[in-house]
């Protein structure tokens, strides 16, 4: 091979080295930036997003226990473990955790992907008195009139749109024996949600939801107080009637199979004059 060709190849290799170095530097920069972003932990914001829908600080027990003075009641070590993964505490047989789990109707606290340091910041925030709570003073559902329940049903079904433009509940949820095919199956069946959350908890879940997906949807388009009350009233009534939606998943399967058979049958019918066999005598054709 000629010397010039070699030189050319050498030159190309040098270029390649520079290119990879440049890429490496860019990658490192991106990683550092991401790490810096992660480091900025805002306890108040985190509490608002992840804790406030189930806990209060001084507002009494809710879905989970009141967190006022929790720092004095439990050791910091215990709290870190509990917040990071409550279920592993319970399955490990921690007596306090188990007791709380039983007390609060076996509601699982989700795991929180926080470092011990971040948990400490969070605890410090709670120690300082937590967020400024605006009490939700909705009427209890027992006070609802049939008109409220009717309104709630309309809102749930979406036949009456929500004032702030949020999507109707039925898009994701089902309740009771609503409609032939029930509602959406993306999220939980809400038939017994009133029993599970009880009056105040349900009000809170409706007004100030703690579920990630619902927060994405309803924080920019919150329910009005009237809507929340009507929906609660509707869910209360559904709970009282206690009709679990009866296996609409199964209905879907049957409908699917039936529809398929029907569709194929229709195809067979509409193409009944098609050529059904070959004309070739060696292959059974031409009679």
């Amino acid at each position, binding site marked *: 091979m000629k010397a010039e060709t070699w030189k050319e190849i050498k030159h*190309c290799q040098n270029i390649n080295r520079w290119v990879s170095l440049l890429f490496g530097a860019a990658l490192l920069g991106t990683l550092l930036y991401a790490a810096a972003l992660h480091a900025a932990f805002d306890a108040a914001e985190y509490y608002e997003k992840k804790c406030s829908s189930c806990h209060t600080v001084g507002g009494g027990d809710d879905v989970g226990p009141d967190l006022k003075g929790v720092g004095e009641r439990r050791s910091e070590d215990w709290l870190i473990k509990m917040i990071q993964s409550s279920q592993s505490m319970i399955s490990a047989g921690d007596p306090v955790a188990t007791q709380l789990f039983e007390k609060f109707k076996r509601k699982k606290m989700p795991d929180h992907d926080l470092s011990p340091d971040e948990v400490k910041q969070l605890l410090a925030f709670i120690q300082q008195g937590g967020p400024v709570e605006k009490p939700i003073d909705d009427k209890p559902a027992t006070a609802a009139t049939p008109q409220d329940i009717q309104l709630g049903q309309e809102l749930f079904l979406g036949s009456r749109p929500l004032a702030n433009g949020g999507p109707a509940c039925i898009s994701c949820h089902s309740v009771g024996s609503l409609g032939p095919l029930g509602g959406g199956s993306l999220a939980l069946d809400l038939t017994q949600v009133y029993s599970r959350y009880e009056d105040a908890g349900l009000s809170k879940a409706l007004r100030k939801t703690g579920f990630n997906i619902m927060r994405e949807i309803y924080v920019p388009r919150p329910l009005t107080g009237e809507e929340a009350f009507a929906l609660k009233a509707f869910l209360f009534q559904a709970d009282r009637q206690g009709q679990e939606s009866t296996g609409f998943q199964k209905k879907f399967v049957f409908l699917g199979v039936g529809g398929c058979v029907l569709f194929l049958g229709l*195809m067979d019918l509409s*193409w009944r*004059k*098609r*050529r059904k066999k*070959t*004309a*070739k*005598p*060696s*292959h059974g*054709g*031409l009679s």
Partner: protein
Amino acid sequence: MDVRAQVSVVFHLDKCIGCHTCSIACKNVWTDRKGAEYMWWNNVETKPGTGYPTAWENQEDYKGGWVKKGNSIELKGAGKLRAFKNIFHNPNLPTIDDYYEPWTYRYEDLFNSPEGDTQPVARPVSLLTGKFMEIKAGPNWDDDLSGSPDYARKDPNFKNLSQAEQEALFQVEKLVMFYLPRICNHCLNPACLAACPSGAIYKRGEDGVVLINQKKCRAWRMCVTACPYKKTYYNWSTGKSEKCILCYPRLETGQAPACMHSCVGRIRYLGMMLYDADLIHQFASADESKLLDLSREIILDPRDPKVIEEARKNGIHDSVIEYAQRSPVYRFVKEWGLALPLHPEYRTLPMLFYVPPLLPIMGMSEEGVYESLTEGLFTDIEQARLPIQYLASLFTAGNEGQIREVLKKMMAVRLYRREETVGDLGAEAVQKALKETGTSREQAEAIYRLTSLANFEERFVIPPSHREEAIVMLDTEFEKKGTGGFGFRMAVGRGL
């Protein structure tokens, strides 16, 4: 008058020996490719027989061609609405079994097998599955098998023959057959073209060759259903339909198509014809009894000054007009009226014409015994072994009179030549035969010469293609300048 040029073809069935050389030539040039193995753009069928694909003439099964509706026509199987309804499932397509499962042989086994007690054999291998197969059918499976219960007896052309007539035809002493070579007819009113939902099929302006644009074809396969001759084929490998292209690259360089060039019996004639495109719709929609006459009438006399003037107006080059005047096809079809279209009742106005076979006129049997010793070597046409009705079903939409006319004329030419060479019939008998068919002696001589003695240049009168004029129809010639010649089909990669 809208004069256009059409490359037309005549096949002289009296001369076909059924050797399939045409089919092989075509296969080697065009369809020896993956996905095209089962295609025979040119095939030769034994008649009576079912042909390829099996029973293609049975339009009740395949739904090909046009049908008359009021004063117009519509496609039998793939009209606009019907095609739309069936666009994802075309219900009348021939299956691969209607064609045949193509195969090859493991020839290498003949050479590479280890030494053993028995001769090695080349086992057949399917070209579809690649597995060993048992051959059960082929594209000409019924070759020479006239009278076979599976094939000849199921010929769709027997529909007008009584059971007794059919049985008589299949007695061993009376068995009769002839060959029918078929290629795309390059029709004036192509059903395949009309059926294509993608608009991929077109008829070339300069010579009327019907082609499928392989870039536009979207594999709906409506053309396969629509063509009553089953001469468009679906390539399962490329996902496009293909058909006979009348070897247009050869035509453009002045050569006869491969099938015609290789024809051993010299049965094929090719030439230019001028026709009036304004009449296509009217003629194709005519009553069935008039179809044959009209499919001749649409062809214009290239010597008529008015036709020439109109042709020039339409941009037909003088050389094309001159070649049309010398076209052997024009003589067979128009001047002599000897060549007939295949199944004119399909209403596609086919531009491939057949001189019907006169062959089995000899050896009429008397009570099942051949009578080959009598003085009258030629028996009467009426007593020909092949029923006139059968030929009529093929070439004249059932009109026996028109077939008889053609056969009588051919017979007269034979008698004329016999008198010339043997001299045993007497001038008077010959004169009578010629007069009866309205044939002059000069004409009889010309028919004889073109039938029997014509050389290559007389059989194939291919006009200069004038590609430059065809290009100008679509583009400016200056754009094409400097873009021809050799080069790379794809960009050449170089560098890093």
